[in-house]
């Protein structure tokens, strides 16, 4: 394996900037109880199970993973909408893992969220003006008589007509509603905006409008984004760095270009190969890895590497080495993957992955020679 190579490369220069958000060993378990009066705890959903993560000021960190991998729970933990079961959360250099009440409310001024469903995240009985103005009223940062002016300014900023101040959410299209959600999140000039699948409910032509808007706002207000999505092409477009999550753990983190050029974790590779490429020739040139089965239950995650029951890499290795179990049947994994949990190790500058046998192949044909495929230049 390339372990010797990896060790030979010098450790990446430590960034001098302090991270805006830092998570250390963060866990969020949801207890499963039996009984009505005497509720016994019989188990737990390990939604987030030991996550270390840093988000630097002004950057966009993309977070990808399948349904049920814990990415939304992680976002809610960062927002302190869930309490941490274990671990530490720092925001802007301050330990905020246990802040409560007034302090928590003040903290929320600096972090806001944009939700996935633009239909469910706006109160249908409130006018747009009062939805966007709600943060001002709750935090009292703007005197009452100036709220309307501020709200209209925000509406203009996100590309809504300020004259629509008194309209209701149902009068807007999906894309416009998402703009309302963005305006609301911007009201208090936060430092961090957590975007939980902000464009997955929108049509492609509208999706591009919202992505451009988020980018413009980031440049204008020096915002930091935690951008959660399951669409790897969208994440690639918006992110500076990307983290990949599987069953409550981060399995790979890297600079955007490094991750897409050479994914190291087999799960990242499989995710990438599954993205349909809108180009018939490139699609044919793409390496196809079809993952079998579904994500296992987070109540009782697999031992060792959590990905080993589905991992195409360990299956191939076991086959290559002709490994068999005690009954002589072929093994579908290398014993090390079953027994030993891999930790995040350096795979190059700023690139970490948790795998015993990292990949060393390109998945997406990025710089394919047009001559070679016959695709027009």
């Amino acid at each position: 394996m390339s372990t010797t190579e990896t060790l030979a490369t010098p450790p990446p220069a430590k960034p001098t900037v302090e991270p805006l958000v830092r998570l250390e060993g963060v866990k969020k378990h949801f207890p499963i109880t039996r009984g009505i009066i005497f509720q016994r705890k019989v188990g737990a959903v390990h939604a987030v199970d030991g996550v270390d993560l840093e988000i630097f000021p002004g950057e966009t960190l993309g977070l990808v993973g399948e349904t049920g991998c814990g990415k939304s729970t992680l976002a809610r933990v960062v927002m302190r909408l869930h309490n941490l079961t274990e671990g530490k959360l720092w925001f802007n250099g301050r330990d905020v893992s246990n802040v409560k009440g007034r302090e928590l409310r003040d903290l929320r001024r600096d972090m806001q969220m944009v939700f996935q469903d633009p239909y469910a995240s706006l109160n249908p009985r409130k006018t747009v003006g009062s939805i966007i103005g709600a943060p001002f009223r709750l935090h009292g940062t703007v005197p009452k008589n100036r709220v309307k002016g501020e709200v209209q300014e925000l509406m203009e900023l996100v590309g809504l007509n300020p004259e629509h101040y008194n309209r209701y959410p149902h009068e807007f299209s999906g894309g416009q509603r998402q703009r309302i959600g963005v305006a609301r999140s911007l009201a208090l000039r936060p430092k961090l905006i957590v975007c939980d699948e902000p464009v997955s409910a929108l049509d492609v032509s509208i999706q591009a409008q919202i992505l451009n808007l988020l980018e413009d706002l980031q440049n204008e207000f020096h915002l930091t984004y935690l951008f959660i999505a399951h669409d790897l092409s969208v994440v690639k477009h918006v992110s500076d760095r990307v983290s990949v999550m599987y069953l409550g753990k981060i399995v790979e983190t890297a600079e955007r270009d490094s991750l897409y050029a050479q994914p190291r974790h087999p799960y990242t590779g499989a995710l990438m190969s599954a993205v349909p490429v809108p180009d018939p020739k490139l699609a044919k040139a793409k390496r196809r890895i079809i993952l079998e089965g579904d994500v296992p239950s987070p109540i009782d995650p697999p031992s060792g590497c959590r990905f080993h029951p589905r991992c195409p890499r360990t299956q191939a290795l076991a086959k290559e080495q002709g490994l068999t179990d005690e009954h002589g049947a072929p093994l579908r994994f290398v014993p090390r993957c079953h027994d030993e949990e891999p930790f995040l190790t350096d795979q190059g500058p700023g690139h970490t992955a948790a795998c015993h046998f990292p990949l060393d192949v390109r998945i997406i044909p990025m710089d394919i020679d047009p001559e070679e495929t016959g695709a027009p230049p």
Partner: protein
Amino acid sequence: MPEPLLEVKDLRVHFPTEDGIVKAVDGVSFAIQPGETLGVVGESGSGKSVSFLTVMGLINRKSAIVEGEVLFQGQDLLNVPKEELQAIRGNKIGMIFQDPMTSLHPFYKVGDQIAETILAHEDISKKEAGARAVDMLKRVGIPRPDERARQYPHEFSGGMRQRAMIAMALSLNPDLLIADEPTTALDVTVQAQILDLIDRLQSEFNTAVALITHDLGVVAEHCDYIQVMYAGRLVEVGTADDIYYRPMMPYTWGLLKSIPLLTAQEDRLHPIRGLPPSLIHVPEGCPFNPRCPYVFDRCHVEVPQLLPVDGFHAAACHLSLDDRKRIVQEEVLQRT
């Protein structure tokens, strides 16, 4: 040219409402040959689902005005008696829907639901139908099918439910499978599994597939022919290569330019400006004219017809073919 399996001629589906007539489908003609895969792309409200629901006879004729012809193996499905339609539906045309949770009945065992479809069309015993259901579950790649057949839909994951739906749709070996956004609710990894399964079963059963989706990547990978819909009309049809390498309609350009690519890096996306039109007040002339960057006076007056470009490739646009070829080379294909 062999006899097409399905031929739709000048189909119009209009829904009268209090606010006016919603022209969901407005003059659509196309054909599907046996065994081929047709991709239908378009945004929400472009009429792609409604046109195929009409083919299946799932549009309530009391609340909609349906005109045109839907010829399936030479028979006009819009004018056959209900019993005959019932015999074709499920038997010769199968359909799978976007949301596998709401399309399976939560109270009945999965195996029984598949067996029910078979029993509705074939004169066999319940036991035989049950065995066929288990066999179908096995063919769509569900592990331990006999056990799974006795379970309820809530015990299945999203991908498994979609597999069960496919098993049900293919249990009678239909000639045409209509897949309406079959993978939109699923993760990419599961999406790849399901699309692969559809591909495999298609070659195994020689079924023609109509794949309705908004994802240009999905059609690029799985379809022989593609038709692009906008505001209830077909605006461009062609082979996959035509649509991706020689698109000839500004809306198709807009779609291709607005998607972020995994295979290229660029600073900014190029969205289509504005919003899709209301289907009650479709703009005069070309329905795309308010959003089109190349609009000129003729576009406001005259509806462009779907005119052949070459071979099977056709597009509806007033710009001259030379202008469009130049724009495609200079502006659209510059991404990679």
